[in-house]
């Protein structure tokens, strides 16, 4: 299968600030591609350019054979966008919302009617289709939000952090829905700052930070970048300050990298051989009078890749 989306050296500047600095990647037809990065990394700006919502300062993207610079309307017909927030009219019913958005995508008559019925069935809201969206639970609203993006039968769907701020059950439903859509052949561009979601969903992942794509590949390809190194997570006591421990561990010759997150206080240590070093690490903590509640040993993952590449944790 060929690439359905090719982003070429996309740049976006807002005044003196360069939010996206020459991002290049391609998405194959039928795959789930995740853009993984912390908040403010440039994910939403990139997806906004790929949606035709904002014009790139330079560079271009070709989606389903159309250039976003020269043929933005053709691109908009080929893509479905599921924004981060619930972008629906709450005082209208789900059916009315779908009819309205369908018309905005240029559908009409019998085709619109059929697509609305199909989408309602797909998102499991046929029974409550005529109730106001305002009366729905957060998860139901999310489903309608996704349904709007599917109405016109797009070739690729963009999902911009669709699980932010929702309960675990709704999150699970959305992840399952994304996988189901993909099973039916839909290509998905998914942005997230949750490493677990990218790992669970994606065929390939692009890691973005400070507006730059710093790594791109399958999960195996990316974790290979970390090499044979392992990740050790030290969960500290609630009131402990992790900084002195991080400083001390960074000086140990057996430790490749050590970082900390404050709430809850966790120190993440990357090192080639845990068995040899564990006693020394615990001893260092003891010397500094830092209480360790528990220790996790993790296989190399995207979090470790991000840490390896940036020196920071994804959620910093």
């Amino acid at each position, binding site marked *: 299968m060929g690439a359905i989306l090719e982003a070429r050296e996309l740049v976006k500047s807002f005044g003196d600030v360069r939010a996206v600095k020459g991002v290049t990647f391609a998405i194959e037809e039928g795959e789930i591609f995740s853009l993984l990065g912390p908040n403010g990394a440039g994910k939403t700006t990139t997806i906004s350019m790929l949606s035709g919502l904002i014009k790139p300062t330079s560079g271009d993207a070709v989606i389903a054979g159309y250039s976003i610079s020269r043929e933005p309307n053709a691109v*908009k017909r080929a893509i479905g*966008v599921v*924004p*981060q927030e619930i972008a629906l009219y709450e*005082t209208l019913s789900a059916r*009315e919302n779908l009819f*309205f*958005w369908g018309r*905005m995508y240029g559908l009409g008559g019998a085709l619109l009617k059929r697509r609305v019925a199909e989408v309602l069935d797909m998102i499991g809201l046929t029974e409550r289709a005529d109730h106001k969206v305002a009366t729905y639970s957060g998860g139901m609203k999310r489903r309608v939000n996704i349904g709007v993006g599917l109405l016109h039968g797009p070739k690729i769907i963009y999902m911009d952090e669709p699980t932010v701020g929702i309960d675990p059950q709704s999150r699970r439903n959305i992840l399952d829905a994304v996988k189901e859509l993909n099973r039916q052949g839909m290509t998905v561009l998914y942005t997230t700052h949750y490493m677990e979601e990218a790992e669970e969903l994606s065929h390939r992942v692009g890691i973005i930070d400070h507006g730059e794509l710093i790594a791109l590949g399958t999960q195996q390809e990316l974790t290979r970048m970390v090499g044979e190194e392992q990740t050790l997570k030290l969960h500290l006591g609630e009131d402990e300050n992790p900084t002195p421990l991080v400083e001390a561990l960074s000086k140990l010759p057996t430790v490749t990298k050590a970082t900390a997150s404050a709430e809850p206080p966790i120190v993440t240590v990357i090192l080639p051989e845990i068995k040899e070093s564990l006693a020394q690490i615990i001893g260092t903590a003891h010397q500094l009078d830092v209480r360790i509640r528990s220790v996790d040993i993790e296989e190399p993952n995207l979090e470790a890749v991000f840490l390896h590449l940036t020196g920071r944790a994804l959620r910093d």
Partner: protein
Amino acid sequence: MPKFLSIAWKDLKITFRDRAALITMLLTPFALSLAVAAAFGGSGGGSTAGIRDIPVVIVNNDQGDLGNLIVEIFNSPELVDLLEPTLMSDEAAARSQLENGDLVSVIVIPPDFSERLSASQSANSEQPQGIVEVYTNVARPLSSGVVRDIINRVLSRLIAGSATVQLVSNQLVETDRIAPEQMAALAPELAQRARQLVQGEGLISVEAESVAGVRRTEFNWLAYMAPSMAILFLMFTVTNGGRSLLAERESGTLPRLLTTPTSAGQIIGGKVAGIYFTGLAQMGILLVASYVILGVPWGSILAVILVTLALVGAATGWGILLAAISRNAAQAGTIGMTIALVFAGLSGNFIPRQALPEFMRTASYISPNSWGLEAYSKLTSGGTLADVTTPLAALAAMALILFIISVVAFRRQSQ
């Protein structure tokens, strides 16, 4: 259906399903019209005025004849129901009564009134300043406004009449029809002619005009308050429409619309059409309800429709401009509410325009309220389409100008 109409229809549906919005748009203006009209006495088409028997004291110190003329005019049959004039010689006592709230106005005619009036005319000067002193009761602005209006009109007529007699006298002498020494013999007759001129047909029409809708045309408070409140609440509606455009940006529906193959022009066009149709529906319902339930005499149907179309257009222009210049929905709401209330205050949406100072009436022409109210007032007083061409043209021009300014502002914003 074109996309812009789909957007407009969606907005119309959202607004008319909102009970709170319906109360604000329809019930409140209707109830307020009724309440204000009831408070001031007018309760139906062709009813009598709420203002009558205004207590006025005239202190006539004039040594000449023209002061008496003013007294006579204030006691004329045309004004007998409206005014209750009393003649007093003690100015201090009269002003004391005014301060106690027993009077609406005290008019003090100075001793040299006739003399100054004649002198000013022979000197060919402008209207002399402070020629008559009028003291009014601030607690009764409506009645005070009526008295002030009458005295201004009477003085204008007096000055014009006096000038005419002066001109005729001069011409008679200059063309040698009479000798200057014969002028003394003619003086009483000329004075009588001046009196007739001031009291004659011209003044009657002045009275009819000055108290238009107050007395002679049987001022109908409902016919005044119904359009006043409808226009005020129309401004609230367009404010809400402008605010909704920004609210859509904040809630994410506007950015989402921009990711569909719908142009920015179609989206803005749809929002404008939505505000316009909502305003039109609101005005239509209020006008029909006030006619059917309250019997407000709207007059020529064609003229009322055209005025309403133009008025809602101009109001929509303000709503869109508001969206174009505001940073967010909250700011648009605050600015819009302020503009709506200032326009209403300036234009006489709360009290009759006649009671407002001249500068306010002039300033009010920046608002759709003023032109709309002027047009509706003429129509409810029996005017025809020909009588409202100026307000119609002004409203249409206002709509066009505001729309152009808004488009420019939106383009600047998007850049």
